[in-house]
């Protein structure tokens, strides 16, 4: 798309009949047009897979898909009625609040655990650090579906390891607790799977920020009589805050719309209505019920919310790369 005007601009002078300069000129034109040709496939791929659906989605969010439309009638324009409807729909708000709660719990737990392990990495010998790092890489590499299958097995009601351990350490009632068919059980498993899966990224990013803290400053603080806690709060923490903020932000964005973990657990028979989070809710409304209008409006809201939340991250990465280029 971007290439079109550039091509026109370049082609016009090329038509000039002056022979002697034309070769050098053609070369300059080629130089000017070439970058646009090179980015054309990227633009094409993104427009086809994302741009066009985005536009369609916005159009759909302004239309109504009822029973007649399922039998082939053209969708009816309803303006922002779908948005008004989802905003006033109590079940949407329940899903929204539930997603925020799930996100708050899993994101904060993963950040706290991640921060502690990252600090631990700075305190241990090389062998222990490498062992932990290799472990984290293994966890990181696990496909999401494999992770879910493993956690379901660990929490299996009758033969799962978790219930066996719980029964042994003083909770005999838990010996056959059906984790995968209760709401609270499903959210526990999903949160554990999400936290376990996000720890590697959090730990590596915070640890790499921690290694940038200059030792001299810490030593100076030590000489000035600052204890370990004070050194951490006054010296280390301010220096790693930017990294922590970025990881935290990404964590919030990802945990707000967990799809795979919840969807997979829902397949095991728990009440779908009681366990839906934003991602699965959009899926159920749109693909399950065929209410494309409502689902598109909701998806558009989620998209805007995501971009608003991540805007600072995007701006920062952009500024960094600009700096790098100049």
């Amino acid at each position: 798309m971007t290439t079109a005007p550039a091509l026109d601009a370049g082609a016009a002078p090329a038509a000039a009949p002056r022979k002697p300069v034309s070769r050098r000129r053609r070369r300059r034109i080629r130089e000017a047009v070439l970058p646009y040709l090179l980015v054309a496939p990227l633009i094409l791929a993104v427009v086809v897979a994302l741009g066009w659906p985005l536009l369609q989605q916005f159009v759909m969010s302004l239309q109504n898909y009822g029973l007649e439309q399922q039998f082939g009638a053209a969708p009816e324009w309803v303006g922002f009625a779908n948005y008004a409807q989802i905003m006033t729909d109590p079940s949407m708000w329940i899903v929204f609040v539930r997603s925020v709660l799930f996100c708050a719990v899993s994101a904060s737990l993963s950040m706290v655990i991640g921060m502690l392990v990252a600090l631990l990495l700075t305190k241990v010998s090389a062998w222990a650090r490498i062992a932990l790092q290799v472990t984290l890489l293994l966890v990181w590499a696990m496909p999401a579906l494999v992770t879910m299958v493993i956690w379901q097995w660990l929490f299996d009601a009758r033969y799962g390891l978790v219930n066996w351990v719980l029964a042994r350490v003083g909770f005999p009632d838990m010996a056959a607790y059906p984790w995968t068919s209760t709401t609270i059980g499903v959210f526990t498993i999903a949160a554990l799977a999400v936290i376990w899966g996000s720890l590697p990224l959090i730990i590596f990013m915070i640890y790499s920020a921690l290694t940038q803290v200059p030792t001299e400053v810490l030593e100076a603080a030590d000489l000035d009589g600052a204890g370990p806690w004070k050194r951490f709060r006054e010296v280390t923490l301010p220096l790693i805050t930017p990294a922590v903020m970025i990881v935290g932000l990404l964590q919030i964005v990802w945990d707000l719309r967990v799809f795979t973990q919840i969807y997979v657990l829902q397949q095991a028979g728990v009440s779908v209505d009681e366990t839906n989070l934003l991602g699965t809710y959009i899926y159920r409304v749109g693909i399950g019920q065929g209410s494309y209008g409502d689902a598109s409006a909701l998806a558009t809201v989620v998209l805007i919310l995501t971009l608003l939340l991540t805007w600072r991250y995007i701006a920062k990465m952009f500024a960094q790369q600009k700096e790098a280029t100049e």
Partner: protein
Amino acid sequence: MSAQSLTKTTDIPAVAPVRSRRTLGNRADGQRRIWNGVAAIAALVLVFPIYWMVNTALSENENLFSRTPRFFPFPLSLDSFAGILIDDGFWSALGMSAGVTAVVVVIAVFFGFLAAVAVSRFRFRGGGLIILLVLIVQMIPSEALFISQFRMLDDWHLLNSVGGLSILYIGTIVPFTVWLLRGFIHGIPPELEEAAMVDGCSRFGAFMRVTLPLLGPGIVTASVFSFLQAWNEYTLALVVMTKPSKATLPLWLQTFSSDLSATDWAGIMAGATLISVPVVILFLIVQGRLGAGMMAGAVKG
């Protein structure tokens, strides 16, 4: 989905320097032993689910369905793996995954390579916008677009096809490969090319003879990461591949496990192990290199 991978890859410390804190007092030495112990326990806890997967996969089902779990897979049994290897669903899913992954890797890396060359070797109007686009696209959650992607592929009669799923994957992965390769190309000084041009190469020839060979590691890394994305992806595959006969590996594992979770955990874990092994091997191979590439280009500049 590539959003995850972008940031996943940004800050891997390839090999972090050991920092001696001896100067902070002798107590550090005494405490270190305790911290080492804590780290060892943390590593065991983190790796345990993976161990449990392999342990279960190598056990016999009758041993799993006893009241006391067995922590070691003895007697070793490869029956579950054999069971997976005669499962038609597995082979069909492997074929689908291999097809989609192959198409995606080749096209995403090629497109990404072209655009990365443009943004890192040319100054042109809109170059900054391209970078911004690449960053924004990686933040778009698949949940926010899959309804209309589903409708679009339905209109084009591309549901349940390798082509349809590949189109969506390519669109989300190319921005990531651009970002990655941009970092690698940036790490190769343009002076090398200029020198070759002084020696009589054309600009194109200089690029092909000087820069391209140095880009080998970058291209391998971008390929492996495109591979991982396409191989592991679940959400879009679920939306696009509605027929069981068109399932990719993650979809197959999901239905396989819900069908058999009452009877054959060893089989399910064998399937999970078979899917993860290539992924883990590839990931471990590239992670150090990826860290270096990202450091060179994106992070440190």
